[in-house]
């Protein structure tokens, strides 16, 4: 259904969802928009916006009248789907026999305000962990199954965004339970599932008018027009494969710190390590999953020999995975154009600039 509600109805929607879910939403904390469990709609950073550039981030008061004046959190929702560190198996040893206790993540989250890029990011992770994997991940599945998604159309992009290049639209077409587009005077609500419809029907709504739908399309068009960055994906995987031995990787390797930041702020980077946490005296051992990164010097070791010794080769692995290998693995790009890796790279490396250089090789 596509309906219109007064802006004041947003709080009612929030509270209805809150009754059934733990809501995770963008919040402003110490000058940075992050993600957190929230209790009230007031905790969202309405009236603020972020200024983002390569290796630069600042939040300031927005000079428009819109609630959804900010753009997106500084890190993606993935840490709520796969926690950065969690025990997945407890092992107890008694009389030479092992007993296993399987731990599951009992969470019923509603993500309130997922932008197009992050929604696409969740879709990409779905393919990695569930849909295109012959051994689906039961931990991911459990959280994902209970997940409720409220999406929001972007009115404007940040200066690092290049979503449209990666096939992501500022106004999402699928994957949400409810989509909110903030118009000048009202909110346009679109539902993607019955679950979403159930909530919207409890609001004080009316059918959307033709001109309101038009307005939402215009917002999207304007947003796309204001994008400052782009990445040309046309034939890019082939170009990368052709240039796998290029000196450009060494050149980037001189700038990259292998700090792992890009992988951690990326909505699709999924790599993790498995470590054992031992409690010797109690005969207990926990198997723990913890975020890892292909920039970690211990990542690709075989018998303690690191296959990707140089930083250049680790950067190449990451970049080629996003823009070439992923296409072979999952039939899509591993990048959603959110631009976070550009903002949060302390070495000022910009994936879109590198694309232009690689194309000129």
């Amino acid at each position, binding site marked *: 259904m596509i309906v219109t509600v007064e802006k004041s109805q947003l709080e009612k929607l929030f509270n209805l969802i809150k009754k059934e879910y733990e809501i995770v939403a963008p919040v402003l904390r110490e000058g940075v928009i992050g993600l957190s469990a929230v209790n009230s709609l007031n905790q969202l950073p309405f009236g603020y916006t972020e200024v983002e550039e390569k290796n630069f981030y600042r939040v300031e008061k927005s000079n428009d009248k819109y609630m959804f004046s900010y753009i997106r959190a500084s890190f993606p929702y993935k840490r709520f789907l796969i926690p950065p560190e969690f025990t997945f198996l407890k092992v107890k040893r008694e009389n030479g026999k092992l007993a296993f206790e399987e731990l599951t993540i009992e969470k019923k989250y509603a993500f309130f305000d997922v932008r197009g890029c992050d929604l696409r990011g969740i879709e990409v992770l779905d393919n990695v962990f569930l849909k295109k994997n012959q051994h689906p991940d039961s931990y991911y599945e459990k959280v994902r199954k209970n997940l409720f998604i409220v999406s929001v159309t972007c009115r404007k992009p940040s200066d690092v965004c290049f979503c449209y290049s990666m096939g992501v639209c500022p106004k999402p077409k699928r994957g949400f339970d409810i989509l909110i587009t903030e118009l000048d005077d009202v909110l346009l609500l679109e539902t993607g599932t019955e679950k979403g419809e159930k909530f919207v029907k409890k609001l004080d709504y009316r059918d959307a008018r033709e001109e309101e739908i038009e307005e939402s399309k215009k917002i999207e068009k304007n947003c796309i027009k204001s994008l400052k960055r782009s990445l040309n994906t046309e034939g890019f995987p082939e170009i990368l494969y052709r240039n796998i031995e290029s000196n450009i990787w060494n050149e980037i390797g001189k700038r990259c710190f292998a700090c792992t930041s890009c992988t951690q702020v990326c909505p699709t980077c999924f790599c993790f390590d498995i470590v054992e946490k031992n409690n010797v005296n109690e005969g207990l051992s926990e198997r723990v999953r913890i975020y*890892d990164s292909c920039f970690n010097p211990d990542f690709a070791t075989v018998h303690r020999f690191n296959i990707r010794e140089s930083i250049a080769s680790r950067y190449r692995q990451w970049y080629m995975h996003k823009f070439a290998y992923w296409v072979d*693995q999952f039939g899509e790009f591993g990048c959603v154009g959110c631009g976070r890796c550009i903002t949060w790279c302390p070495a000022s490396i910009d994936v879109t600039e590198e694309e232009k250089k690689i194309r000129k090789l």
Partner: protein
Amino acid sequence: MVENPYLLKEAEIVEKIKETTDTYTFRIKCSDSFKPGQYNMIYYFGIGEAPISIAGFDGEILEHTIRAAGDVTSHIDSLKEGDLLYYRGSYGNFWDLEIAKGKSLVLVSGGLGFAAIKWVMEEAIKRKDEFSSVISLYGSKNYDSLLYTYHYEMWYREIDFKITLDNPDPRWKGDVGLITELIRKTKLNKDSIVFMCGPDPMVKFSVIELEKKGITPDRIYVSMERHMKCSVGTCGHCMFGPFFVCKDGPIFRYSEIREFFERKEV
């Protein structure tokens, strides 16, 4: 509901055979299903898991040959007959003997890589009438690091089984030299199908020798070793070019991986 891919299964070690000073073959009672070329993740309490190729299975007894190379494998090698072993699997693709039907099957292995070849070799022996010939070339560093010596007599009898030692030894009367020399010396048909497992440099140079004999890379299948942690294609550690070695492999057609295999740091 999706089944938890990390749950471990329990099996009893019924026999432990000493292969070399640091390598043992475990015979494990087990009623699972496995295929030659696949591997299991073997767990040791408090230490972790290691991917170990399946060296044999007859429907009841599973065989794993394990060298104490790291923390996990050292601990597994300390297990005794009657102890329980915890594993999950089987994982990965398998050696497909159908490809070699009617042709000459050539098995090439080096070092512990022989453990990943042994079972398919035994299967090939059982079905040797289906192939024009079965040749197995195995390179070992030293006399003392030879694996499965107690089977040699039978293998010599059944197929064209050849061993070469990197280092000469007074106790050794056979070939001495690298596996590449043994390949060079052996008469091989152009239309042979090759199954290979060994360290990366051995594979690379063996392929060159095979190519000199007219065996093209599309006829060569290689079992690879990478850092496998989850073995279900999600932790990312074993990634190799566009492949997850854990689930797309460990066996690859060489023509499909060559561009990555022969490059540094992929």
